[in-house]
């Protein structure tokens, strides 16, 4: 990649920080994201209502500490589907003034964001912290399938099997980076495949 070059669509993630004016807080985290949640509570335990949805993972499980730190409002969930279903039901009862905080992989965060979008929560209304991995969700522009957890510069599409070049161009609506067939002009001729999003 050319030095100094930066695609504006690429999301910028920050460290989670409590929004001081929020009337309630909803924190959704996965795996290593548990550490981001602990860092939040290290800063302060806010007086407003708090809901924390956490999904431990084989790579990281902060459940035990979270149970101690967040005695009320913590819900532990096993799968992403469970997290998203719980999120959906929790959001139904919430009002403007609630602030949403998300921590985990890009795959996870943008799945959460899609559910939040359904409730009219826009990108600017969510705080996101990337944790654990740089693995990317990739949207195939040929078959429109999304392939999750791509760690290499070129990845195989889970939908059509094409080898896709992973671009930096990101769609907030799709929650994925753009993937383009790399060997369309000379089938089978592939550059070296390297892990660049470990």
């Amino acid at each position, binding site marked *: 990649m050319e030095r100094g070059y930066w695609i504006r669509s690429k999301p910028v993630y920050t460290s989670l920080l409590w*929004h001081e*004016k*929020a*009337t309630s807080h909803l924190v959704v985290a996965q795996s290593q994201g548990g550490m981001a949640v602990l860092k939040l509570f290290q800063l302060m335990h806010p007086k407003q209502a708090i809901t924390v949805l956490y999904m431990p993972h084989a790579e990281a499980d902060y459940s035990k500490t979270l149970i101690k730190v967040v005695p009320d409002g913590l819900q532990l969930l096993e799968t992403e589907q469970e997290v998203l279903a719980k999120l959906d039901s929790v*959001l139904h009862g*919430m*009002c*403007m*003034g*609630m*602030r949403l905080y998300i921590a985990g992989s890009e795959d996870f965060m943008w799945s959460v964001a899609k559910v939040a979008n359904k*409730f*009219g*929560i*826009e990108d*600017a*209304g969510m705080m996101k912290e990337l944790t654990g991995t740089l693995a990317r969700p990739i949207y195939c522009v040929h078959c429109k399938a999304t392939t999750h957890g791509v760690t290499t510069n070129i990845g195989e599409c889970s939908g059509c099997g094409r080898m896709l070049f992973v671009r930096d161009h990101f769609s907030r609506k799709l929650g994925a980076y753009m993937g383009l067939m790399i060997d369309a002009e000379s089938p089978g001729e592939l550059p070296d495949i390297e892990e660049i999003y470990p």
Partner: protein
Amino acid sequence: MSMIDIKVAAVEQVTPLVKHFTFVKQDGSPFPAFSGGSHVVVSMNVAGRVHRNPYSLMGSPVDTGSYHISVRKQEQSRGGSVFMHESVEVGTSLQITYPVNLFSLAKKAHKHILIAGGIGITPFMSQLVDLNRLNSSFELHYAFRSPEHGAFATQLKTICNDKLHCYADSKGERLDLTALLSKQPLGTHVYVCGPNPMVVAVIETARNLGWPENHIHSEQFLSPGIGEPFKIQLAKSNIEVHVPAEMSMLEAIEAAGVEADYLCRGGVCGRCEVNVLESDGALLHHDHFLTDAEKASGKKIMPCVSRARCDRLVLDL
């Protein structure tokens, strides 16, 4: 800037202070369609001096046969609103700009809370048409001095039914902003147009209740304030311009024959922003566009509403 030649087709006294004007095009052709919340700048020749004031379009955005504006007669008018009230009648010819929207509805909103104070009702009149057409969820909260000053209240009742909430100050009716904004469903956007204290109160209340900035919308056209006269130097044109007490910098620049960019003429849009090359005194910023840091830097000014108190002010024009 290209203008549309219009003539006044109807004038109606709506309240003791508000007149409603219907415009049609001079050549009888249709106007461009616009989106709810748009405004036009009306150009008037008042005793040899050109006044250009922004007014919200309040008719239906899909009605291209005529445009509608309402003008409140300002107590401290620089001449524009008094001219509209006293000198404009059916048949008067005027020029207007093409519509511009600086107060559009958020397309992704799940619900819209519209808050109007007095003449601030006008941009909502066209937005209501859009909201009804899209079958959007909304509430209109309309505050005015007393029932006789509640312009278009009857008409609004027909358009909004139970979504309209009126508050007459004379009857002691008050809009409780905290109560209103603390129990709104996710995805709600709030819009306010009215006098400055009301706009500030809505923005502050929403912020203090944790609303994200991009869910808070406001429009407030300022009229250029009357101030001390001063002089400016235009570097590119190489001339000196005198800005009289009751003329804005932009008007004085235009009167001197220098073409300057503008859109809203009310300190909102940012189009007339100009670089300050040199100044030896205080810039009196009145706009809602520049950030506090930009205002403090003294490097930029919005000539449509801002003034200066200095002996030397050089602008990059």
